[in-house]
């Protein structure tokens, strides 16, 4: 039933020493705990027979001393078992993160950040509750149970039998209630999910609601949903409210039995009064295991569901990683890129994005890819640093299939400036030097010059040490793009890929950047993707993509003369420029 939690075994094994100690401490602590009612029994009996005051003092001190020892062990239990649960939480989260980092881009596109976060926080947390409290209470209570019963039997088998008589009835009752609770709980969950969906829908469609003045109606609908939720919840409460009374009934019933039957036995001279005291104490010790049973069962159930979700992520394949085919001898790259019959689709049921494309880019050249939105330009360049792998065909760098190049060698040699700018909330320097091992301030300044960032930095409160993002300053779109360009340049890449990286940069600055880039990129391979003709027109070669294929190929002049897609784009851009210059 709780099979998913079995996967935690390797973590438990890792801490088996500490855990075994914990179990030992549980034994020792309980050994002390069960001794106390016996002390009370003897004390009380001394009051009815030999009236020994020294024995009373002696026992009183023993009770305090024994509890102290039990307390020390109970302290050690938490210091071992609960601490181990924190260690395992740490390990689990670390493994989770290590795994996540290796997952392909696809995973992050299919799973929202919030979703991934909830695995890393909520699910790991609920698994930890199992590893810590649930394990501790289960063992503790189990041990207590099996220690107390024999003692009770040794004191009076008959009274033990009577006292524990309500137990089986209770178990059956709880089992029956629990079964129903589960059904009702599921119904609540369903309604809660309905509630979430309708809120989600309402807020997404708020424009429609407002424009058709449907607010009141929507509030009515939502009120009805909430009311249904309330009703279902109360349906469960009707059952749940029984739990506590049932437990107290059990405890109380057993005590009454002990007083009644035990009292009769005392009157018959078959039992000492002290034994009744001891029994009442043992019963109160036993009631906690019973109560915590439900609590623990609940934790385990939740932890199992969480573990199931976590395992789903742990079982996500890496898709892109080093393997037996990897040629570890490859330690540097020159920069000749070749696509051989490359076909690519995002997954089986998706349409073909790149259809049997072949081309070669000699090292040191600058080439551009252009085309209408959605023709697969980004997909094409994502194949070079293996953000995705080809569906068929091969991508070669220096004649070696990228799949055989060690992943870190490949990626540290390819400087990709992605379309969506992302910077960490850290200093500008740290952002620029992100990809480097031990970056120098000189590098920062050099690449910032090329990216035309230096002039902006002068106005930042702390220059290059200014923190970006929420805790610092907010950069403009253009500044962000130029920073990400600087970051890619800082790793001194053999291949530089710019994916529409100047869209928010004005044309004048763009020209300046391109001029400086030319110098920097003299011996490297550059690939530029852009919508703007101005960005690509000086490239050595321009590829026009359309419908998954290379539709046109040539220099700017050749392509304009061709009168195809490129010429159309060129014409449109002239019009747009004219438009934007009109006022």
């Amino acid at each position, binding site marked *: 039933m709780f099979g998913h939690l079995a996967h935690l075994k390797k973590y438990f094994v890792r801490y088996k020493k500490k855990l075994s100690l914990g179990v030992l401490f549980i034994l020792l602590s309980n050994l002390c705990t069960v001794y106390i009612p016996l002390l009370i029994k003897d004390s*009380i009996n001394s009051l009815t027979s030999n009236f020994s005051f020294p024995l009373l003092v002696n026992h009183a001190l023993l*009770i305090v001393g024994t509890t102290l020892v039990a307390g020390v062990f109970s302290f050690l239990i*938490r210091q071992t078992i609960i601490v181990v649960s924190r260690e395992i939480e740490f390990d689990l989260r670390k493994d989770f993160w290590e795994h996540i980092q290796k997952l392909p881009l696809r995973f992050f596109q299919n799973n929202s950040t919030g979703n991934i976060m909830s695995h890393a926080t909520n699910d790991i947390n609920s698994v930890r509750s199992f590893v810590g409290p649930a394990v501790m209470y289960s063992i503790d209570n189990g041990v207590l149970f099996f220690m107390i019963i024999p003692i009770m039997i040794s004191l009076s088998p008959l009274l033990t039998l009577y006292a524990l008589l309500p137990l089986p009835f209770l178990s059956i009752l709880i089992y029956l209630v629990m079964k129903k609770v589960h059904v009702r709980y599921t119904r609540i969950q369903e309604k809660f999910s309905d509630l979430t969906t309708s809120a989600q829908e309402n807020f997404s469609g708020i424009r429609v609601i*407002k424009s058709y003045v449907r607010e009141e109606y929507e509030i009515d609908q939502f009120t009805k949903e909430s009311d249904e939720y309330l009703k279902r919840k109360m349906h469960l409460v009707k059952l749940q409210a029984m739990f506590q009374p049932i437990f107290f009934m059990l405890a109380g019933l057993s005590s009454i039995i002990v007083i009644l039957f035990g009292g009769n036995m005392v009157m018959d001279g078959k039992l000492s009064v002290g034994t009744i*005291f001891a029994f009442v104490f043992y019963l109160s010790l036993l009631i906690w295991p019973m109560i915590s049973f439900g609590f623990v069962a609940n934790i385990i159930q939740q932890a199992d569901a969480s573990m199931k979700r976590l395992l789903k992520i742990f079982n996500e394949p890496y898709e892109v990683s080093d393997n037996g085919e990897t040629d570890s001898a490859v330690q540097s790259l020159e920069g000749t890129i070749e696509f051989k019959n490359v076909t690519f689709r995002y997954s089986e049921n998706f349409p073909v994005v790149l259809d049997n494309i072949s081309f070669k880019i000699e090292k040191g050249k600058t080439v551009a890819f252009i085309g209408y939105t959605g023709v697969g330009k980004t997909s094409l360049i994502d194949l070079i640093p293996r953000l995705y792998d080809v569906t068929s065909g091969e991508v070669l760098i220096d004649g070696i299939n990228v799949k055989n190049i060690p992943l870190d060698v490949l990626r540290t040699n390819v400087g990709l400036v992605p379309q969506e700018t992302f910077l960490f909330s850290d200093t500008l320097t740290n952002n620029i030097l992100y990809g480097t091992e031990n970056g120098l301030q000189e590098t920062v300044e050099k690449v910032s010059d090329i990216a035309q960032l230096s002039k902006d930095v002068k106005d930042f409160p702390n220059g290059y040490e200014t923190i970006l993002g929420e805790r610092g300053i907010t950069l403009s779109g253009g500044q962000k793009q130029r920073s990400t360009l600087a970051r890619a340049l800082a790793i001194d890449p053999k291949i530089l890929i710019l994916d529409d990286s100047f869209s928010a940069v004005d044309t004048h600055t763009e020209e300046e950047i391109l001029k400086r880039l030319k110098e920097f990129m003299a011996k490297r391979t550059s690939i530029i993707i852009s919508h703007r003709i101005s960005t690509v027109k000086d490239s050595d070669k321009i590829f026009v993509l359309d419908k998954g294929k290379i539709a046109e190929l040539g220099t700017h002049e050749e392509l304009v003369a061709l009168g195809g897609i490129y010429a159309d784009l060129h014409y449109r851009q002239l019009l747009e420029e004219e438009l934007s210059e009109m006022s």
Partner: protein
Amino acid sequence: MAEEQKDDEILGKAYDSKLMRRLLKYVQPYKKYVLLAISLNILVAALGPLRPYLGKIAFDDYIAAKNYHGLLLIAGALLGSLIFQAIVQYFLTYYTELMGQKIIFDLRVQIFSHIQKLALKYFDKTPIGRTVTRVTNDVDALNDMFSSGIVAVFSDVFVIIWIFIFMFSMSWDLALVTLSVIPFLFYATFLFRKKVREAYRDVRFHLARLNTYMQEHVTGMNIVQIFAKEKSELKKFSSINWNHRTANVKSVFYYAVFFPFVEFLSSITVALIIWYGGGKVIQEHLTIGILFAFLQYTEMFWRPVRDLSEKYNILQTAMASSERIFKLLDNKTFINDPEVPVQPENVKGAIEFNNVWFAYNPGEHVLKNVSFKINPGETVAIVGATGAGKTSLINILTRFYDIEKGSITLDGTDIREIRKHELRKYISLVLQDVFLFSGTIKSNISLGSDKITGDQIVEAAKTVGAHRFISQLPNGYDEEVKEKGATLSVGQKQLISFARALAYNPQILILDEATSSIDTESEQLIQNAIEKLLVGRTSIVIAHRLSTIQNADKILVMHKGELKESGTHQELLIKKGIYYRLYQLQYKDQEIVKTV
């Protein structure tokens, strides 16, 4: 944005009296429940401590006197009190839970209604998921506090009071001796709370760091991978993760000390009862039954203390959630209605923009000094490049946003003098992206309005040409719309939204034409539908179709937030200005398609 984002990181103070007072206001309507719960509590609280007292009687009066019958009677009394307590306890739990749920319900509906009133500005800035969390999870997190939390505190207090009463009535000196440990307990609890609060703050700090790190790096995972920084990021992550672990381990320490210490204190009371009470029994000042009762009271007395940490957690969660909820409720981004609204009568649909200035963010004007007039029944096409201000025009006409300067009038009345719900009744808005709700086709056309009859729905669908495909669906108009209409084609969804607009039979129609291309067959259907839609009412269309533009009475050309040209298609083409170029860029291709 930055401030909003931190919302989710609010982990809450353990206790905030201001928040608490505000939360308790929601209990106000349920005073009766609270009174009932408290009176039941007083009753139930007495029953627990009564049993050890009955136990005392059993020992002293019957067992000692060998009175079998009396013992049976006492056992009966004990059983009776137990059953009675169980029943009362059941109803108590039920009613407090019911009260909690009702409060939660009120709060949920209040939040939802509040959100409905918020202006679009709020929705522009806040991710939907965050708003959803406020009405769902955050509200639910308060449940424990309202149902078990508040009442449990009362019940603990009453139980303790009853224990005191019984103890002192049996033996005041033993009671004093037994309770002498209490000051130590208070001091220990005080120290513990202080330490735990510090430790908790530390945990919270590291948890927030951990979450921030993960959030940021999951979002920017492609950067981590592109630069092959997995190893060094793992190192960074591990150090943050380690600090989080260490902070937690530290707080474990305090719990590990506190709980055994409470046990230890409790054992001292047991020892005191044995030593002092036992001594008194020997001197025959006390009876064994009293010892029995006192020992039981000790057990009862320490239970509330043991539950301390659980209550602390409940409180903490409630505080964090309520802080987020109240922050939303305090958000008053509204578009206000006039105090003395004008009630328009017999609306004809004449619209006039007089020198309108508008900005989403202060200082960044998206509409500059725009003036134009639309006569009743006219169709006006608005054209312009992306960002020219076309959508802003319709946003301010429907009062989704208010303008900065100038005025917009409807039949000569400033729209700010009309209640916004009234104003919107005259306008139907068809958006570019069709939004379908879950429900049926029918309910998506009527949007649940009971003023629109089934016949009117069918009529509207027939007019726009949607009837044919709807009637072919297995359940016709009662067909469920699943997953925002995933099973319908783009064209079908558009036709439904047209039918919706038509069913409301507005004086003014605003249509933001979809740019997405669809197959020629549906294209023809949609063109026909649009023509029908525009007949006999004032219409404003953000046009992407050449046919729509050509059929318009007037074309307004927006450029960089200003109205630059206006006139008919032919007039504007001859001008060779902005429209001419827009035509070349956007519409000319459609002409070619048409001739083909």
